[in-house]
Structures are given as structure tokens and as C-alpha cells.
């Protein structure tokens, strides 16, 4: 076994060496690393200027980080891309005369090591604000431990869920994960009758995994009397789950085959900036869809998008996300009525709009149909580039108009006195959404030749946020100027200014679109 492990370790040491050696050959690859270092230094500096962070801040922060990690992991199980391996492992290791248990044991160790490194990096990053909050270095290690133990539990859970999902119903396995890992989170919130108070409650520390880890993490600030219980529970869980994996490890190749393929495709697409978030729902998978055939030239893209939407959703104009917007609108009003938050409805919806747009900005580069730009036929179809771009984006914009209408219609009825503000918010929301769509095209045309889109993504995102923020910033400046001249509701003036500024920028972009697209090489 030791010999086999040595072979695997050698292989990975060579890979790491080559990764760094490549920087000599290809200096461009250093750019993202350089960016991260600068960013890191900047963040360390900016944080050292702050003096104090409250315990509640860290309670919220740790809860948010752990929840996001949990949700990402469950999503990976759902999309069948949880695997300790890559395709080269399948081709070379699975057929080699090396014990499957050794391969698995080593892969678990390798994954955990990577995660521990990531945890350490995160804590080095957080250390100035932790130290300025009065935390000593040994106590920071408790935080690292809380985070690392959580990560060490997550991967094995996902591995087992993924394996069981092949044998039994995957959706049932996901449901079980949600029931045991996500649902209990709501218990402290219900008891405290507040989301925020629930998150900050010590009761949360008793929830399996997220809670235990948070309990260990928060012992940085004040050693909990239950610290050893949390550590014991978390370690026992990790031990049991890993023993189970190793006990059943002789026959996992087939279970890992499709997950590894999916994971490899996902990583490959991510590197090329083509990963898409798409729910696997085909409402009309086998239904014959008949659409009018009068979509000629550039309109063919709209036709194709409609067909795909019909296939995947209830209707080409609305689907699962429409339902999501509806639930969000109604939900916000219901939880407002039971006083889960203290803002006015219009303020809450302003925040909600900003959050939704922020999420769209963060993920839209990977999601919104810009893959058309990588298809040769996009350039070959004999029609104007502007028309093609409009046609490609027409349906997503139509859908967003409908979705946002559904989001804003209920609050504007309930909070009727602010109906004008909701209407303007709706207009502003959609204008920013269109700016996001167009900024994607611009980004795609600028960052086309990058080898690793994942590494470049933070730089791209900052650039994109900058692109989106400029028109809004101009809008806010105009609004403040106008506000000095005419005496009107500032919020309304801001909404109008942002909308007008977005439209102006869009028109300029559209006029430049021919030039932008003609610069794209595939």
C-alpha cells in the first residue's frame, strides 16, 4: 500500500511542479495570481484600518459561509458532479493494478488537504479583523478547526449521497439531505421568531454539521462550555462516515464514472467561461412544439430560444423562475407582516432589487445565452450583427420583464401609495438587466482567449461591475443635481436618472455592437 501511495504522491508532486514551471513559459498565466496577491494585500490593509467587529457579525458571517458551502455541495450532488476523481484518474488509475481503496483513501486525503489549505488562506485573510476584534492567534486556530471539520464532513456526505443516488432515487436522497441538513436551520429562526435572531442564537450551534462547526468557530470569541461536545460530535461524524466509505470502497468505479465525467465537463466549461446554471426540468420533453415558421434571418435565434424555453418550462415566457419571483414577492410581504424585518416595504424591495441584480451580475456571464457567440453560425447567418444580438437577447429580456412585473405587482397593490416608486423601480430593474446582458457580450469579446476563465473570473467580474455601475453612477450624480433644482422625491429621481442613463449607454453600445462583434474571433 505504501508503494502505491508513493506512486500517487509522486504523480501529484510532478503536477504541482509543472503548474508553477508553466509560469516561466506563459507569463500571462501569472496575471490572475498577481491579481489575487494584490487583492489580498489590499484587503489586509483595508481591514487593519477597522477596529472592531461584533460577535454577531462573525456569527452571521460564519453561518453565511457554511450555508453557502452546504448549498453548493448539495447542488453538486443534484447535478451529479460530486467526485473525488478526474477523467485522467478514470482512464489511468481505475484500470491500473492499484487497490481501489488506496486510490479512494488517497483521493479523500488529497481533497481534504486542498480544503484545509483553502481554510487556512481564508483565516489568514480574516486574521486582521479577528485580531482587531481582540482574538489571539491560538484562538484563531479554533476557527480554522471549526471550518475545516465542516469541510471534512461535507465531501464524504456528498460522496455517499452521490453513490446512493446511483442505486436509489437521487431526488429522494437530495430530499433526505435537505431534511437533515437544511431544514433544522429553520428551528432556531422559528423559536426566535426572526431570521437574524435565529442565526445569531446559540441554539443554532446544536444543529448538526453547520451548528457544531459554528459552535467550534465561535469559541474563538468565548470558549463555549459545549466546545468539546461539538468537537466530539463533528469528529465522530467524520470518522464514521469515512469508515463507511472505506468499508464499501471496493466497488465504486461505476458510481463515480458519470459523476466524474460531469464534474470534468463542468470544470472544463467553467475554465472556458461556459458553465451554465440550469435546472434539469423538461416539462415538454417529448411534446411536439409547433411555432409559426416566420422567423427569418436573425429572428431564427428568437425562434430557437422560444423552442428551448417551451421544452424546458411551463411556457416560453414563464417557468420555475417566474414562480420564484412570485414567491419572493408574496414571501417578502408575509414576513414583513410578522415583523421578521423592520424596514418599510419600499426600502425592503429596493434592497431586494439590488440583491437580485447583484446575483444576476455575478452569475449572468455564465448563464445567459452568450454561448451563441462561440457558434460559427452566429457569424455566418446573413443578417446585421445588431439584429442578431437583439434576437439572441429578446426572449430573456421578455421573460425578465414578466418576472419583475410579477415581483412588483403585489407590493404595489399592498403599498399603493408608493405605486409610482414601484413602477419606476420596475423600469430601472429591467434597464439594468439589459445593461448586464450587453455587458456580457462586451466581456466575451474582450476576454475570449483566456486559458482559464475560472481564474480570471474575479477580474472579469470587477470589470463587469464597473461597466454596469457607470451608467447607474452617472444616474445618481444627475439625480443629486436635479434634486438641487427641483424639489421631488429623491428615490424617484434616482430611479428615473438610472433608467435614462442606462438607456443612453445601451444605445451607444448598440451602435458600437457591429464593431464589437466584428472583433470576435472563434
Amino acid at each position, binding site marked *: 500500500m505504501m508503494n502505491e501511495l508513493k506512486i500517487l504522491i509522486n*504523480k501529484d508532486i510532478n503536477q504541482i511542479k*509543472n503548474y508553477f514551471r508553466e509560469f516561466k513559459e506563459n507569463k500571462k498565466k501569472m496575471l490572475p495570481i498577481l491579481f489575487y496577491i494584490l487583492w489580498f494585500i489590499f484587503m489586509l490593509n483595508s481591514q487593519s484600518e477597522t477596529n472592531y467587529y461584533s460577535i454577531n457579525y462573525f456569527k452571521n458571517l460564519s453561518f453565511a459561509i457554511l450555508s453557502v458551502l452546504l448549498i453548493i455541495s448539495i447542488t453538486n450532488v443534484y447535478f451529479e458532479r460530486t467526485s473525488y476523481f478526474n477523467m485522467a484518474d478514470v482512464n489511468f488509475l481505475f484500470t491500473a493494478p492499484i487497490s481501489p481503496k488506496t486510490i479512494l483513501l488517497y483521493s479523500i486525503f488529497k481533497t481534504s488537504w486542498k480544503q484545509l489549505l483553502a481554510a487556512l488562506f481564508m483565516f489568514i485573510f480574516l486574521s486582521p479583523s479577528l485580531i482587531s476584534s481582540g482574538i489571539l492567534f491560538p484562538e484563531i486556530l479554533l476557527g480554522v478547526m471549526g471550518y475545516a471539520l465542516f469541510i471534512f464532513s461535507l465531501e464524504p456526505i456528498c460522496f455517499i449521497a452521490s453513490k446512493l443516488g446511483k442505486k436509489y432515487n437521487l431526488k429522494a436522497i437530495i430530499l433526505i439531505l435537505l431534511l437533515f441538513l437544511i431544514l433544522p436551520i429553520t428551528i432556531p429562526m422559528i423559536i426566535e421568531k426572526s431570521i437574524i435572531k435565529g442565526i445569531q442564537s446559540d441554539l443554532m450551534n446544536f444543529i448538526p454539521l453547520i451548528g457544531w462547526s459554528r459552535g467550534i468557530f465561535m469559541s474563538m470569541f468565548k470558549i463555549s462550555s459545549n466546545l468539546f461536545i461539538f468537537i466530539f460530535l463533528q469528529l465522530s461524524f467524520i470518522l464514521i462516515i469515512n469508515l463507511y466509505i472505506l468499508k464499501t470502497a471496493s*466497488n465504486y468505479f461505476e458510481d463515480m464514472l458519470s459523476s466524474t465525467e460531469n464534474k470534468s465537463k463542468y470544470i472544463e466549461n467553467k475554465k472556458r467561461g461556459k458553465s451554465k446554471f440550469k435546472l434539469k426540468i423538461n416539462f415538454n420533453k417529448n411534446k411536439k412544439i409547433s411555432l409559426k415558421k416566420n422567423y427569418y434571418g436573425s429572428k431564427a435565434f428568437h425562434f430557437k430560444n422560444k423552442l428551448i424555453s417551451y421544452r424546458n418550462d411551463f411556457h416560453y415566457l414563464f417557468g420555475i423562475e417566474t414562480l420564484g419571483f412570485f414567491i419572493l414577492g408574496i414571501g417578502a410581504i408575509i414576513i414583513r407582516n410578522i415583523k421578521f424585518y423592520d424596514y418599510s416595504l419600499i426600502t425592503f424591495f429596493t434592497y431586494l432589487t439590488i440583491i437580485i441584480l447583484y446575483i444576476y451580475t455575478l452569475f449572468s456571464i455564465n448563464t445567459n445565452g452568450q454561448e451563441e457567440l462561440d457558434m460559427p453560425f452566429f457569424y455566418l447567418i446573413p443578417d446585421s450583427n445588431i439584429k442578431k444580438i437583439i434576437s439572441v437577447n429578446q426572449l430573456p429580456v421578455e421573460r425578465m420583464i414578466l418576472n419583475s412585473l410579477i415581483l412588483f405587482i403585489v407590493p404595489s397593490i399592498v403599498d399603493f401609495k408608493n405605486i409610482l416608486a414601484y413602477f419606476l423601480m420596475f423600469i430601472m430593474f429591467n434597464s439594468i438587466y439589459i445593461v448586464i446582458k450587453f455587458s456580457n457580450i462586451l466581456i466575451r469579446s474582450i476576454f475570449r482567449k483566456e486559458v482559464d476563465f475560472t481564474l480570471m473570473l474575479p477580474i472579469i467580474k470587477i470589470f463587469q461591475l464597473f461597466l454596469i455601475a457607470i451608467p447607474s453612477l452617472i444616474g445618481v450624480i444627475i439625480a443629486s443635481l436635479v434634486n438641487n433644482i427641483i424639489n421631488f422625491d429623491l428615490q424617484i429621481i434616482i430611479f428615473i436618472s438610472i433608467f435614462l442613463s442606462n438607456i443612453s449607454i445601451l444605445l451607444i453600445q448598440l451602435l458600437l455592437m457591429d464593431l464589437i462583434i466584428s472583433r470576435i474571433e472563434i
Partner: protein
Amino acid sequence: MLKVTNLTKKYKNFTAVDNVSFQINKGEIVGLIGPNGAGKSTTIKSIVGLLRITSGTILINGKINDSIDAKKDFAYIPEFPKLYDNLSVWEHIEFIAQAYKIENYENQAIKYLEKYDMLDKKNKLASDLSKGMQQKVSIICNLIIDPEIFFFDEPMIGLDPKAIKETKNIFLYLKNKGKSVFISTHLLDSIEKICDTILIMKDGKIITRGSIEELKGAKKITLEDLFLEATE
């Protein structure tokens, strides 16, 4: 060398391979042909232990196919070779040599690299190679293992004409060395002249088997005609 008995592979209600039996003798080249979705890749993946078989037995040199001992006796070249991005061509060879405990492989590896015009790419990282070159590396890595039986899944896909010719020569070279070769493909002309036995697969079953001469009989037809006659 290889004995497959009543091999069945099911995915829930779908039977991908249905009660298939055949054997390959020492020094024999066997071609498994069939239309898309016939079950060729599933058969080959089941034999090399990447898929769990639903029923049946697979013996390689008398050993159960997914045992460590059996793995020393075969090499598998997948349809879509995936290499380690950050390993060079030579480091792949070194890694495989270590994994299969092969000594004094260097000269042989260099010969294979020369045959496939890859000697000058020896220190290139896999991520810098084209798909065809990656396929060549995958073949070379498996050739240096020098096992008793080789499994090739669509080996010609992505190769340039010279590499296709070299691969055909390699098949014959392996046969002359007394090795067995099992090739799954749908490129009929690539195997017509080199296979001793042909298995034609359709809907998970082997519907025809025999040497090309036996299958053609007195008819003056090509393998393509034979294939179309059998599968349509």
C-alpha cells in the same frame, strides 16, 4: 486469454448488454463492430471493470476481470483519452511505468514516441497537446505496459492518417508478439484487413460472429455490406 460468459449489463430497465458470450485466444485480433448505441463501449467498459456487470463472468487469463491480478494483464485505451493536464508526456509514461511496476521501459517508450511522431513533444504538458496527440499518448502509455491483452475503444478517432497506419501496424506487431487485441469500433475499413474475428453487435446482443472469410462466405461483398446486411 479472455473469456466472457453470459455477460449482461442493465441500467434500471434498460439492458445495454444482453447475455453476451465470446472468447479471445492468445495472439488473436478481435473486432467488435456495431451501430451507435449497440452496447460496444458498455461491453468493453464492463470487461475492464469500469462498470459493474449485472450478471455473467469475465475472466482475463483465468482471473476475475476486476481483480488486481487481472489488471496487470490488460491495457485499456478509452475512446476519449483524458490525461493529467499538468503532467508532461514523459511524466505520464513514468507514472504508468510506476503504477504497473515496469522497469527498463525507457528505450521502448522512445521507440513508440518516434513511431507516433511524438518524440519532440516528450516534455510538453498534456494541456498543450491536441486531442489527436493526447490519443497517441494514451496509446503509448498502454503499449509500454506490455500486457497480454489490449482493449481499444474506438482507437482511430482523432488520429491523423499516419497515426492510423501506425496503429494498424501496432495491432499486427502485438499479434506477432502473441498478444491479444480487442478493438471496438464503427470504422469498418480500419479493421477489415487486420481482424481475425469479427463480432457484430446490435441492441446489446452479438448477432453475428466469425472470421471475415467465414462471414462473407461465397459472396463477393465488403465488410460494410456484411455489416449493413446483419444490422438492418
